[in-house]
């Protein structure tokens, strides 16, 4: 779980997300990566842990971007002594529900290598402008990955261990979502889409990705295409 927080609202949203995971009757470990938040996320900002709910907190001393934080969480999870049934990525800003994270994990337990969340099949309140951007993103991703998926750039996804080992993220910022699809398509993994609900509020829209960010994603993908072998 990547997290870049500024202000008290962000801490409360993170805590609420973790509380909702803790409330589930499942054994869960959260690999929480503080991506250069100022002030830093401290253990006192987080809910108490117990035998079934564990939090591993890591911190980037400078802000690198969501993709970089996800990659750090991925490496932490793979180096952890415990091997998990499923590895789920989700946002920490309150947009994603614990219920959906567990539904994605179940899809992995049932045999899929990768499960992508599909916000259009769930009870999501996607704003019209975001729908247009996501429609274009979906077609763009379809063109470059060959994957026929109904959603794009949804932070709710799950991986089996062997799939996670093959998805090394090099895009530090938001282009990681397309990069992940590209890596998954090349690895020829079993993919499913799972209905999820993404909640858009004034706060989550302010904290999250902007529609104009699509141009930056295209730029980052182009730079990786041009210079990727030097990275």
């Amino acid at each position: 779980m990547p997290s870049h927080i500024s202000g008290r609202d962000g801490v409360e949203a993170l805590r609420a997300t973790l509380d909702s995971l803790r409330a589930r009757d499942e054994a869960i470990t959260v690999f929480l990566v503080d991506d250069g938040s100022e002030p830093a996320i401290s253990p006192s900002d987080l809910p108490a842990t117990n035998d079934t709910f564990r939090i591993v907190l890591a911190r980037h001393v400078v802000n690198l971007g969501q993709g970089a934080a996800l990659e750090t969480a991925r490496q932490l999870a793979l180096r952890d002594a415990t091997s998990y049934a499923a590895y789920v990525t989700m946002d920490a800003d309150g947009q994603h529900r614990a219920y959906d994270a567990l539904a994605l994990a179940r899809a992995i337990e049932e045999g899929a290598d990768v499960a992508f969340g599909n916000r259009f099949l769930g009870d999501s309140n996607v704003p019209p402008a975001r729908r247009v951007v996501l429609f274009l993103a979906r077609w763009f991703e379809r063109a470059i990955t060959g994957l026929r998926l109904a959603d794009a750039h949804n932070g709710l996804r799950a991986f089996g261990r062997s799939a996670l080992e093959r998805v090394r993220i090099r895009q530090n910022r938001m282009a990681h979502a397309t990069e992940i699809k590209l890596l998954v398509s090349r690895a020829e993994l079993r993919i499913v889409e799972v209905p999820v609900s993404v909640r858009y509020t004034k706060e989550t829209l302010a904290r999250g990705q902007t529609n104009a960010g699509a141009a930056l994603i295209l730029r980052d993908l182009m730079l990786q295409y041009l210079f990727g072998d030097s990275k």
Partner: protein
Amino acid sequence: MTIAAFLLLALVAGLVIYDWATLRGKNRRALIVEIAVFVAGAVFIVFPDRATALAHVVGIGRGVDFLLYPTVIWLVRESLLSRRHRIESAERLTHVVRELAIARAADVK
């Protein structure tokens, strides 16, 4: 001397003075190279016929093209190299920050 030549010379002189003032004491060799290039540029600004004569020697019609072609090629290359260096630097920074984060990661009690 034309108005354009005068303005270009003023720009060159202004840049040299600014760089000399801000870089004084450091990057002296780079500053000397910059001044040498700018002086050569100033000569071609004041005497454009010299550039045209040189251009004709190598089969290019205008003096300005003689200077522009290699400059554009060099700038494009410089831009790509500079971008690659920035990406490599960012990659190294990411690696250091990530290794530090992983080394310091701890269970929340």
